[in-house]
């Protein structure tokens, strides 16, 4: 399996292209933009987008999805039943699905938004806005913030290791977030 990162200069967000090394049916996680470089990335690697995974229904993470759906006949998955102006496959916490031979587990982490999902593929965590390198998602109040931190600690940092692919900013590791993320240290004290 290969993972490619694509950065959107419009929404400053990351999209991830996930597919078999030899090409074929592929997944896009959070299509923040659909531009020519992303199209070239897909086509150059002989991929057809069959599945779109949305970490949460915020514009910076879905903006490119509508265009993408005009090019590729993809099925949409996420924590809401309606995404990208169409019915989508609703995922719940702990669901395991297999898309194009790739096993995906959905982990629901509340706090940043009511539909926030983290997708785990093996040891790779696609965290959207839940967790970024040295940061956590914005929250509307202290209760939501506590819920978010609790969710991160219980559902993500409970894994001994893994790679974090966030919706914004550079990649990280589970170990690095456990050791260096200041938002998570305070709660551990």
């Amino acid at each position: 399996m290969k993972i490619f990162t694509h950065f959107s200069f419009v929404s400053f967000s990351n999209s991830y292209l996930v597919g078999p090394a030899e090409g074929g049916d592929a997944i896009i996680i959070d299509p923040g933009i659909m531009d020519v470089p992303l199209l070239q990335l897909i086509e150059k690697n002989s991929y057809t987008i069959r599945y779109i995974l949305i970490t949460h229904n915020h514009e910076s993470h879905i903006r490119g999805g509508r265009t993408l759906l005009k090019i590729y006949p993809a099925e949409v998955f996420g924590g809401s039943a309606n995404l990208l102006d169409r019915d989508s496959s609703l995922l719940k916490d702990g669901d395991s699905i297999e898309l194009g031979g790739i096993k995906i587990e959905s982990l629901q982490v509340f706090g940043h938004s009511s539909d926030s999902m983290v997708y785990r593929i093996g040891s790779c965590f696609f965290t959207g806005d839940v967790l970024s390198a040295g940061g956590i998602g914005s929250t509307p109040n202290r209760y939501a913030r506590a819920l978010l931190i609790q969710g991160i600690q219980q559902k993500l940092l409970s894994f001994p290791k893994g790679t974090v692919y966030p919706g914004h900013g550079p990649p990280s590791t589970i170990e690095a977030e456990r050791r260096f993320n200041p938002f998570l240290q305070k709660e551990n004290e």
Partner: protein
Amino acid sequence: MDTSKAVCAFPGCEKPALSFTSYCAEHLPDPHRHMERVMDYLSGREDHSDICLAGITISGMNLEKHRFRDCIFDEAVFLDCSLEKSMIQGCFFSNARFENCRFSGCEIRYSIFCGSDFRDCDFQGSDILHSNFNGIHGLRLNFSDSDLYYSSFVSSRLEEVRFIDCNLKKVNYLNTTRDTVNFKYSNYEEAVFAAIQNEE
């Protein structure tokens, strides 16, 4: 990155196996022979992708203009190496150690250096984009004339580090300890120093 990595053949060990062997650095049956193979490989070509050399020590090597994609160098040690004008994309250098290494004119993207130790290293004139330096200890480093867009130094300890005339847009210095750090001529107003939350 390619996620299909073999694990060490030593019973019970779950660390990734190094390239050119079935074992991790700790369980290598013949580390000297493996090191020779690594040196031959690195000096024989400039394009390297999906290799795992976690925990090895590379000393005095010229890796100028080499291109590394999706490689794993976690806990590796680099001593007196030159990586000038090299390209490093999607690579892992967690808990690594760099001493007296030259990265001038480098292009580093989407790479992880968390928890690493850097001493007397030169990154001058580099593009260091979307890369993660959280939790590093940096002593006598020079990032001057570099573009550090969206890179992160959260919870790091920086001593005698120069960021002169750099692009620091969206660079994250939250929770850093800084002693004699120079941001002259850089747009530090666009960097993050205080606790703010994600915009979206």
